[in-house]
């Protein structure tokens, strides 16, 4: 850090357990707004905020929530690596006062890092309300760092917290590390010495004590880092010997020795500083859980909650959807008129009106539904109920080969697959994540609804609702079937642990919820502005080329491609128009509708009649089945690539979708024909 510059700069990491209110403290410190969730590990990316206090420029880094510095998930690894190797000037450790004892376990490890830190004792209002008393001065003396009671929401204690952070270097605090006992301490000293003798490790090991302790515990990652960096295998052998001796003497493994000592340290301090540390009185959370997690009532309540969320999503969403439709209709019409009056070339007019407005407008129509769904999901997440939902459904999900936490991505998938795939980050295990990502494309996202609405209203007017419902049912069945299939075929014997904290309930803040809704909706709008815009232009181009051809007539390139692909779609009763629509559907499912209407020449005759020329009721249903199952859109493919970091799995996802779609659509068509439907 440059200390010579006129205004001083320091870097402060904000660390803490998941659900400790870490992100709220971060927001209060920086003024930057960012999502506050209740899912363990909702903050995945590195989030940085700046603030200037007393002419000091402080850079705050919001680290993912972590229970310890032995990472269990990629999120926790981010936090650990930052603290170990990027050496911030100070750490602000946020601790939930109501779970002080457990949180002190993390503090025990941070003390060992030899980085100055300040402890923010958060949610102190709830602590007080529960009749607990925490002696902060004593706590401060015992851990050797300043302690500031805070309430992030009302900004209580934030000013003091900043003051302590700024003056951390001037104050005389000497963190007192955990005493592991004579034998272990001697072994640690031994390892510290051995590491410092290897010069190439000197840079990495500013926290010699912590690294040494982790090596004695046999932490595989630290071992890899240290032994990988040093070229001498002697070091490894020597440390292994020390470890074996120690373990033999203590009659347990190194990991347990350290964990027990740290818990002992935490527990000792906790009982020193807290009055009434027992929780015999049921808390508000206990009382709510008695009902919401009730043996028999829990699942029905959850089902009703989900049902209401969906009713609200599509009921309330109807009105703004109509307005947006009207707006784009008006925009297209007026631009058409404007171009005509300006004498602009016909091709430009067609590009803007037929290509861009039709394509992008067709997607933005879903924005209200998606935003409302995300709004309710944010309420459920921030209040703490989502973790309960995972608790309630884990049993069922587990039988399907999934994880309780897979449930939330699946719920989001009914809105839009893109944020759903992103939400799988809460799954700690890579195989579980992959499995969930692979089945998400089968969940009926709202973009596919217009295809089903269009076709079912034309072909199944009397029972459109049942047809629609059958799509949802099929979607769920295919997802379950694939989950089972993949589980046995690709990930046999995988049983991922389910150990999850159920955070205390709290009333979510409106700002946090709106922010979360906005972030996710914005991701969708961005998709409309980029991928779908490009897709629309390409489709328009294919539909207009070669020059001179009438838009979307039989002489265009699109028609040629469709005719080339016709043999592939024949088995489920579609013709070249269906093939083109499905091909373009890769850009986005909504485009299937516009392609169908455009290619069928709906301008000339009524839409229903045009569609009846392409499909019979049976082939329309088979077409719907295909649309339901194959890859949702190019944006999904892009996000799957981004989240899996693997072209292989991305290809598997697309291939699986296409294969299953073709098989099922053909099956429906063939069986239907045999049974005499047409």
């Amino acid at each position: 850090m440059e200390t010579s510059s006129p205004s001083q700069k320091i870097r402060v990491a904000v660390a803490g357990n998941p659900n400790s209110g870490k992100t709220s403290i971060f927001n209060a410190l920086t003024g930057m707004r960012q999502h506050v969730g209740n899912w363990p590990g909702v903050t995945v990316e590195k989030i940085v905020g700046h603030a200037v206090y007393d002419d000091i420029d402080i850079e705050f880094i919001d680290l993912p929530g972590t229970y310890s510095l032995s990472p269990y998930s990629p999120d926790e690894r981010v936090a650990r690596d930052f603290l170990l190797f990027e050496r911030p000037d100070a750490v602000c450790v946020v601790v939930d006062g109501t779970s002080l004892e457990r949180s002190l376990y993390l503090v025990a490890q941070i003390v060992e890092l030899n980085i100055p830190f300040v402890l923010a004792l958060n949610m102190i209002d709830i602590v007080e309300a529960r009749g607990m008393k925490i002696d902060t001065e004593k706590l401060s003396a015992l851990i050797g760092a300043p302690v500031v009671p805070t309430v992030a929401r009302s900004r209580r204690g934030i000013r003091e917290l900043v003051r302590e952070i700024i003056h951390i270097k001037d104050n005389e605090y000497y963190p007192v590390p955990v005493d592991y006992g004579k034998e272990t301490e001697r072994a640690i000293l031994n390892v510290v010495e051995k590491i410092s003798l290897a010069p190439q490790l000197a840079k990495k090991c500013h926290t010699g004590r912590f690294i040494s302790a982790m090596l004695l515990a046999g932490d595989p990652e630290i071992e890899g880092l240290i032994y990988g960096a040093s070229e001498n295998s002697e070091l490894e052998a020597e440390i292994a010997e020390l470890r074996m001796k120690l373990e033999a003497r203590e009659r347990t493994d190194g990991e347990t020795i350290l964990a027990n000592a740290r818990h002992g340290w935490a527990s000792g301090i906790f009982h020193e500083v807290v009055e009434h540390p027992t929780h015999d009185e049921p808390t508000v959370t206990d009382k709510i859980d008695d009902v919401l997690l009730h043996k028999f009532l829990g699942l029905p309540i959850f089902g009703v909650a989900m049902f209401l969320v969906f009713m609200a999503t599509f009921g309330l969403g109807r009105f703004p959807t109509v307005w947006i439709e009207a707006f784009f209709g008006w925009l297209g019409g007026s631009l058409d008129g404007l171009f005509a009056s300006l004498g602009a070339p016909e091709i430009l007019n067609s590009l803007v009106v037929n290509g861009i407005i039709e394509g992008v407008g067709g997607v933005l129509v879903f924005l209200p539904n998606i935003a409302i769904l995300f709004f309710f999901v944010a309420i459920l997440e921030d209040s703490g109920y989502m973790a309960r939902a995972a608790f309630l459904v884990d049993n069922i999900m587990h039988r399907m080969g999934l994880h309780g936490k897979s449930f939330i991505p699946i719920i989001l998938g009914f809105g839009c697959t893109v944020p759903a795939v992103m939400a799988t980050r809460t799954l700690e295990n890579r195989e579980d994540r992959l499995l969930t990502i692979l089945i998400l494309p089968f969940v009926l996202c709202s973009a596919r609804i217009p295809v089903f609405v269009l076709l079912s209203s034309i072909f199944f007017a009397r029972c459109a609702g049942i047809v629609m419902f059958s799509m949802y049912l099929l979607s769920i069945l295919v997802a379950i079937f694939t989950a089972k299939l993949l589980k046995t075929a690709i990930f046999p014997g995988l049983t991922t642990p389910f150990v999850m904290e159920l955070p205390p309930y709290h009333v979510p803040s409106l700002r946090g919820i709106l922010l979360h809704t906005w972030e996710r909706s914005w991701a969708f709008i961005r998709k409309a502005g980029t991928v779908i815009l490009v897709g629309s232009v390409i489709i328009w181009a294919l539909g207009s080329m070669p020059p001179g051809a009438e838009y979307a007539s039989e002489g265009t390139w699109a028609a040629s491609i469709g005719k080339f692909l016709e043999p592939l779609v024949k088995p489920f009763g579609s013709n070249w128009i269906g093939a083109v629509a499905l091909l373009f559907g890769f850009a986005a499912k909504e485009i299937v509708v516009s392609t169908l209407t455009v290619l069928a020449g709906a301008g000339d005759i009524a839409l229903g009649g045009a569609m009846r020329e392409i499909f019979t009721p049976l082939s329309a249903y088979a077409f719907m089945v295909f649309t339901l199952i194959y890859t949702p859109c190019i944006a999904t493919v892009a996000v799957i690539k981004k989240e899996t970091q693997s072209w292989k799995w991305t290809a598997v996802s697309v291939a699986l979708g296409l294969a299953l779609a073709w098989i099922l659509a053909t099956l429906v068509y063939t069986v239907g024909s045999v049974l005499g439907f047409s």
Partner: protein
Amino acid sequence: MRLDIIQDGEFAQVIDVCGQGPIRARLMDMGFSRGTTVEVIRKAPMGGPIEVRVKGTLVSLRPQEAMMVEVAPIVRRRGYRHRGRRGFFRGFMNFFENGTDGDK
């Protein structure tokens, strides 16, 4: 005795966390360490996850993971669920669960 066979509403003291690998470390990080008192709050029906209070926090885990935690039952202390409910849902919930209006 293993944690998964402790009845809901009962307390137990952790003796050791068995097994190995990251899940064991995770359990220890979440507060399951020697000497810690845990309260089994509820069990989801049909072999679903178990909810446990440990060091003032609520943690849910499947019976498979609970099996890894070796505990000794504490007989004298009983959880709040055994002392009868107070407030709004008391009568209703007790009736629903036990078929009577009173405590177990």
